[in-house]
């Protein structure tokens, strides 16, 4: 399966990296911000660098929109997986238009409210994963991640 992995740097990147038991079995393309950490971790991976910052920055929104269009038209992923944040929004929406399955994993740091990026892409998602029962109560369509130890 062809997978597109898109996230910003920092915790979102760490979160997506932690899902390696899933993505390492699939053909994959990464989109994230270029930092010392991401560059070192993604050596040998197929990477497109996104434009940052994305919060309240219109020029970068357009640049990333263009990048999303180019990357998705070229790679045609079957699944787009993101741990947020803002940078993922254009990729998830354009991916949906191209017929990809769209998955958003909400950060463990979200307990009572969804992030702005999750709220923006909510109508386009195949699955929204949340990590706290409080949040799932508010968004019943979301799937709660239940760690195996507690099953």
């Amino acid at each position, binding site marked *: 399966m062809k997978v597109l992995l898109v996230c910003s740097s920092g*915790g979102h990147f*760490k979160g997506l990296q*932690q899902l390696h038991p*899933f993505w390492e079995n699939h053909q994959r393309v990464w989109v994230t911000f270029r*930092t010392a950490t991401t560059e070192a971790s993604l050596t040998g991976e197929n990477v497109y660098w996104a434009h940052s910052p994305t919060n309240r920055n219109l020029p970068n929104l357009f640049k990333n929109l263009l990048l999303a269009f180019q990357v998705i038209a070229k790679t045609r992923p*079957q*699944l787009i997986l993101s741990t947020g944040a803002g940078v993922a929004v254009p990729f998830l929406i354009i991916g949906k238009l191209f017929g990809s399955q769209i998955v958003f994993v909400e950060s463990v740091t979200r307990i009572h409210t969804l992030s702005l990026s999750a709220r923006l892409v909510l109508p386009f998602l195949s699955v929204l994963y949340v990590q706290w029962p409080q949040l799932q109560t508010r968004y019943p369509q979301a799937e709660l*991640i239940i760690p*195996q130890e507690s099953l």
Partner: protein
Amino acid sequence: MILVTVGTEQYPFNRLMSWIEVLLQTEIIQEEIVVQYGNCTILPAGARVYRFLKEEKFQDLINQARIVIAHCGEGTLLLLDSLNKPYILVSRSQKFQEHIDDHQVELALALSQINVPIAWCPGDLVRFINAPKQVSVSDVSKASAIALCNSLEKRFAPTLKELSVGISRS
């Protein structure tokens, strides 16, 4: 040595910088302080400061530190939690333009319920510096990652394999 870090977030976290400065000025902290200040615009006088640190240098400083004081971001939390080092978290708040919303405050509240040290005021920092404690939350997040991977594999891998077999591309 005490390491203070506010991550690479685009918003400043000057409140924490002022707290550190006060503790240094009043000599409540007499240890060396190293600060990774990111986008803060106030820097505590008397501290050794770096704007952004490379991961390697950052890890080095964490290893050298007796205690780490950090903002309540997911990346920082996951990193600190993977190391055996006492840390205390201070949440960024929307009210002071320290973040786009209050998710760090929510996280801090939830973490405090599982006994992770959280500082809501300079006094909490002082108590922690005098009696550091170490708590781990990483087992939970590692277990969550495994659960997620299983769910993703179950949900998408089989259907998409069937689909690509079923659709003729020629």
